[in-house]
């Protein structure tokens, strides 16, 4: 069975202590936002930010998009106050920084369950987006991905990750390849989405496009963003191209013919079309339908054949 997951191509950070940014959340066309109580907020303003974020969440209960709150790490003295203040505002989920091992995710899971009971919400209401952002986090992320049923995706935090490796982050990103692959594998193995790191230079549109095209090829399904100007570029990269859609539709026609002839494999312009090719084509078609680019009804019988 294919579980249709929510689109999370773009998750935009919004500083938690800036009313001018918070109240723009309803008009940003990102798939989701992450209200940031961690790195965007100086230590002296943690109390102000969490009160402001809570009031915003309570004041704007009608959401056009998914809202996560990035709390401070569970190893800091701020995290519990963050949760106590913002959870009554019913964000959709928590982005957990420094998700270095499964235990820290399990701890957050337990805390969220307590708040759900206290607030009268169904258990599992709050989702978790663990952020993998250190060498130890990368090594443990296969288990971290399976630490809680609340997890909807694994996120990569490349700025903190390169800091933990004591290396520079480059525009082309070769230094991130190993970590990115491990995170994609861990996410896919657990049936989760994979959200790539921010691209920090909001003025470098070409760099952002190249970076997004790279991570899409690797298997990431979305990206964290630092600036609303980055949204359209990332959406454009993740939008299936017309030639990809055309090819996927041709594959579907070819495999239909093959099934009619009683076989599961057929040649399309000299290239073999078999089960994995059909699955990839089905995914492209599903994505195109989700983007509203085509109207198409996929039948499992065509994709998988008759039993």
């Amino acid at each position, binding site marked *: 069975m294919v579980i249709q997951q929510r689109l999370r191509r773009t998750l935009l950070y919004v500083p938690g*202590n*800036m*009313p*001018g940014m918070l*109240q723009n959340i309803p008009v940003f066309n990102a798939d989701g936002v992450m209200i940031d109580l961690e790195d965007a907020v100086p230590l002296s303003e943690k*109390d*102000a930010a969490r*009160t*402001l974020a*809570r*009031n*915003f969440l*309570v*004041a*704007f209960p009608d959401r056009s998009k998914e809202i996560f709150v990035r709390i401070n790490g569970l190893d800091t003295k701020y995290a519990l106050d963050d949760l106590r203040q913002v959870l009554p505002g019913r964000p959709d989920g928590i982005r957990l920084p420094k998700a270095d091992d499964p235990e820290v995710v399990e701890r957050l899971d337990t805390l969220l369950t307590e708040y759900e009971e206290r607030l009268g919400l169904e258990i599992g209401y709050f989702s978790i987006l663990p952020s993998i952002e250190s060498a130890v986090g990368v090594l443990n992320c296969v288990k971290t991905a399976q630490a809680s049923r609340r997890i909807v995706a694994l996120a990569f935090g490349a700025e903190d990750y390169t800091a933990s490796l004591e290396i520079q982050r480059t525009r082309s990103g070769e230094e991130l390849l190993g970590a990115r692959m491990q995170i994609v594998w861990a996410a896919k193995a657990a049936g989760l989405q994979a959200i790539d790191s921010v691209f920090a230079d909001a003025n470098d549109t070409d760099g952002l496009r190249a970076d997004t095209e790279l991570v899409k090829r690797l298997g990431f399904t979305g990206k964290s963003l630092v600036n609303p100007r980055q949204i359209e570029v990332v959406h454009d990269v993740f939008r299936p191209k017309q030639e990809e859609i055309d090819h996927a539709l041709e594959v579907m026609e070819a495999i239909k013919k093959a099934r009619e002839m009683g076989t599961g494999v057929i040649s399309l312009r000299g290239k073999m079309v078999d089960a994995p090719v059909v699955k990839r084509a089905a995914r492209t078609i599903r994505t195109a339908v989700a983007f509203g680019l085509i109207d198409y009804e996929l039948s499992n019988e065509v994709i998988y054949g008759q039993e």
Partner: protein
Amino acid sequence: MNITRRASAGTMQSSDLMVYVEPAEQLDIQIESTVKKQFEHLIRDRIEAVLRQLAVTQVLVKVSDRGALDYAIEARVETALRRAAEA
């Protein structure tokens, strides 16, 4: 809640406000705003609501508003009061 010292909260950015509070014998609210003419009474209502909620009766509240919405006014006033009440 007892106000025991001076404190402030907020910023002077657009859509935000600065709130200054200090101990006083009675309740005194002073408002400066870019939209004072139209909205002073509404800003005052929000400030008074937070004061009631936190049971603060003796305080001087000075507000410099930059066009903040209700949720931000309430948040900044609450933060300033809690900072002024902390031991």
